[in-house]
Structure formats: C-alpha cells, structure tokens
C-alpha cells in the first residue's frame, strides 16, 4: 500500500533527513515509526502525504507512483488518506461536528450521509455527546480524538499519525493507540510515528526504527 524505494530527502542547506530509504507497508498492515528527534519520522510521513517531495527515489501509494504527482492531483491523494497531527490542527471557529465533517464537505458528500458518518466517527472516539461543542472547550485528549474522528470520517485506506500522543498522559495515550489498532482491524493501513517505545512495544505491531535518516530494522522485521 505504501512503498518507498531508495528515497533520499535533502532539505535546503544540505541537511539530509532521509538517506536511501527502502520501506514497504502492505495493505492492511499497521506499523509504528520510531527513533530519536531528527531521525526523519516526520519527513517520512510528509513524503507519503505529498507535503514534501523526495530529492531522489520513488514513492508508490496504492501502486501509483506519486513521486512527481502534479499539484492538482494532490487533493485526491490526500482524500485517500487520513492524517492525525500532534497539535490536532482543529479549526477553533467551528463546532466539533463541523470540524469532523470537513473532509466529507470537501469530497462533496450528501448532507444526510455527512451527518450519519460524522456521528459514526464521533461515536467511535466516544465524543458523540460533544458534537455541538467548540473544540476550545474540550480537553487535550478529547481534542486529539476529534482530530482522529476527522481523519477517519471519510473511511480512508491509509491512516497516518505524527506523534498523536505527544502531549497526552500514559492512560490517554494507550486509549488513542487502541483506537488506531481498531481501525487497523477493519482493514485500514496505519502508520504511526511515536517515540513512546514503552507504549508501542506493548501493542505487538511492527516497529520501524529510524536513525539518521535510515531504517535500522524495518525490513528485517518484515521478513
């Protein structure tokens, strides 16, 4: 589902974030991406979401080469995935419901369908009773769950998360990771960047360790 072939990403100023990285994530697989700060975790996710483009190498999403994807095709690629951010990236001038429904509005779903799906997504993250609330009135964990609901409401094939538990206490973090596992169980390919080794090693999923822009063990575990 996600395939990186010999990918190098060099930022201006010659800082190399990723060096000749090879990585394959199968359809329906779930993996954690870990490593110290600056190891290239965020860069890897950004390349997959076409936020950044690789300096060298090839990236395939669902067997389609997105290395040189034209700008006008990027929106469609992103509708194919859901992205969860560490700092939620919620819009604070509209309700929880409106935040979660945004991907569906963008994709042009019918109103009844939007309502049904948003309710289902909020139910999944146990926030159905807060749909009319403004995000600012929610706790950090609740805001993150709204972010997750928004990332999955359009039933994406791929779910990417960048340090989704970065600001949360251990109990909440475990809940969030549990949520990701549940999405994976219904067939979503999940890739979560996290440095919380304790937590992710308990979940029994594949762990990809990055260091200095290179994969230390990812391919080994796959074998």
């Amino acid at each position, binding site marked *: *589902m996600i395939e990186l072939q010999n990918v190098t990403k060099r930022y201006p100023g010659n800082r190399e974030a990723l060096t000749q990285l090879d990585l394959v994530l199968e*359809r*329906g697989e779930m993996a954690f991406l870990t490593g110290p700060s600056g190891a290239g975790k965020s860069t890897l996710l950004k390349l997959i*979401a076409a*936020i950044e483009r690789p300096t060298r190498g090839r990236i395939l999403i*669902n067997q389609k080469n997105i290395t040189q994807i034209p700008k*006008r095709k990027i*929106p*469609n*690629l*992103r*509708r194919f995935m*859901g*992205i969860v951010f560490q700092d939620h*990236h*919620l*819009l604070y*001038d509209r309700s929880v419901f409106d935040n979660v429904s*945004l*991907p569906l*509005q*963008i*994709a*042009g*779903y*019918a*109103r009844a*369908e939007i309502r049904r799906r948003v309710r289902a997504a909020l139910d999944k993250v146990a926030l159905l009773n807060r749909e009319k609330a403004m995000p600012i009135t929610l706790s950090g964990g609740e805001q993150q769950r709204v972010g997750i609901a*928004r*990332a999955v409401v359009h*039933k994406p*094939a791929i779910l990417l998360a960048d340090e989704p538990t970065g600001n949360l206490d251990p109990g909440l973090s475990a809940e969030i990771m549990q949520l990701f596992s549940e999405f994976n169980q219904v*067939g*979503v*390919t999940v890739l979560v960047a996290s440095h919380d080794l304790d937590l992710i090693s308990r979940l029994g999923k594949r762990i990809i360790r990055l260091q200095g822009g290179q994969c230390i063990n990812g391919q080994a575990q796959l074998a």
Partner: protein
Amino acid sequence: MQASTRRPIPNRPNSLTRFRALVREHLRSLVFSLGKLYRHPFASTLTILMIAVALALPACMYLLLDNLQAVTEKWDDSGQITLFLNVNSSEAEIEALRTRLAELKEIENIKYVSAQQALTEFRKFSRLEYLIEGLEENPLPPTLTLIPFEQAKQAGQLDRLVQDLGTYPQVEHVQLDLQWLQRLQAITEVVHRAITILGITLAISVLLVVGNSIRLDIENRREEIEVAKLIGATNRFVRRPFLYGGMWYGLLGGSLALLLVLLVLYVIEAPAQHLIGLYNSNFELIFPDLRQGLALIATSIVLGLLGSWLAVGRHIVRIEPS
C-alpha cells in the same frame, strides 16, 4: 480495506450528489463569507464605507451632469438667431428685409418684434418701468427672430448663416442663441471625460481596497487553509469563500453607494428646482432609474469579485501545509 474488497464503496458520492454538494457548498460559502463580515463588523464596515464613497462620488457627479444635459437639451430646440436691427430702420425697410430673409432656404420661420412691442414686453417682465418712464425715446431696437430648419442647425452651416446675416445694412447685431449652448455642451463634454477618468481611478481604488481586505483575511486564516489542504481541499474549494467575501463587499458597498447617491439628490432637489425656476423653466431632477441603480450595484459586485480574485489568485496556491 475497502479498495481490496472490489465491492463498490457504499454511499460514495456519485456525480449527481457531488453536483448537489457543489451547489450546497457554494451556498454555504455564500452564507459563511457573509457571516464572517458580520463577525468582524468594524473592519467590514470600514471596507464597505470606502467602497461606497469611492463609487458614490463619480456616480453623483455623473448624475448631476446627466441632469445638466437634460436641462440644456430642452433649450437646444430653440436654436434661434436673433437679429437686432438698426433703431432707425423704417417699417418699410424691415418689411423688405423680412421678405428677403423669408427666401433663404435655411429659415423656417421669422418672428418680428417691433421696438414698441419690445418695450411693452420689457415692461411686463421687469420691474424697471420707472427707468424706462424716465427715458425720452424707446432705447430698444426692433428685432427679428429667425428659427432655422432643423437640418440647418449644424454648427458650420449656422456660423455661415450668421456671417451672411451680419452683412445686411439694417442688421446691427446678430446673436446666435445656440452659441452659449454649444460652449456649455463643450464644457459638459470635458467634465464628462474628467468624471469618467475619475470614475476609473476610483474603481481601481475599490479593486485595491477589496483586494487588500481579502488578502488580510487570507493571512488571518492561513492555518485553516493549510488544514483544509491537508485533508484534501482543492485550491478552488479554499478560494470560494474568499471570492464570495469579495462579492459581498461589492454588493454591500454598491448598495450603500446607491443610497448615498439618492441621499445627495434628495438634498439638492429643492435648491436645484429653485435655481431652474429662476430661469423660467420647469424641471424635474432626474433620479437614477432602476436600471442605473442595478448597474451601479452590478459594477460594484464585479469590482469586488475582481479585487478578491486578484488577492486570491496566487496567494492561496502558495499557501501549502509544511
């Protein structure tokens, strides 16, 4: 994974739902952008006022000029030539002159006012009788008023006629009533041009005012734009509310401009009528009709849209999540 099941994904929007969603999305943007103006009343009011003033100014001037032209057009019909004859001309001489003039192909009609009639008329219309009483003889000359044919009224032809008429011995002075009108029309033409240029300049300023407001708005909502793009929003989707915002600025600014114009006309209506009354003419101030009012608002909307389009154009494309 849905894609692997090969079943059609249930409830995916088909083209009809997508079209309906697009219409709904347009309506939503329309309402949303209006709500945004409402939520920032100070900034919005300022922008709308600037647009209104910038449009009302040339519109007012244009309408006043229109009114002036309407007044002069009424007088245009007269277009007559007055011959002031020698005070010493005898009735026979005048009669002979009239016969000769009547033969001219340019002249449609001749009206004779004798010195005596002129005096009577003067008495009737002015309050200066006592001045005239004091005079020993009638100072007023007899006059002939010539009405030229319509087709003879072209400037060059009339000028030649005036020159010819001046050569008759009994004619003391030829006055072409059209002359001052022509001058007035020439002045109006100059003013008309000036207003047009002023109008264009102010239209450009409207464009810039709207463009700047929208640009600031885009800057303030940069984060929102980035989020929307991250979850698959197209540039078009992001652009839409801003374009509608510009349209609202135009609509509200244009409507306010129209109100200002009407207000100005109401204020000057009474004194204008008094002024025209002094010239023994009755005159109704021309107010903008529905078509002109709508044209003003439509112009404003187009300027608003264009202004926001200029601001949105490259700006939104450049905002990308990082």
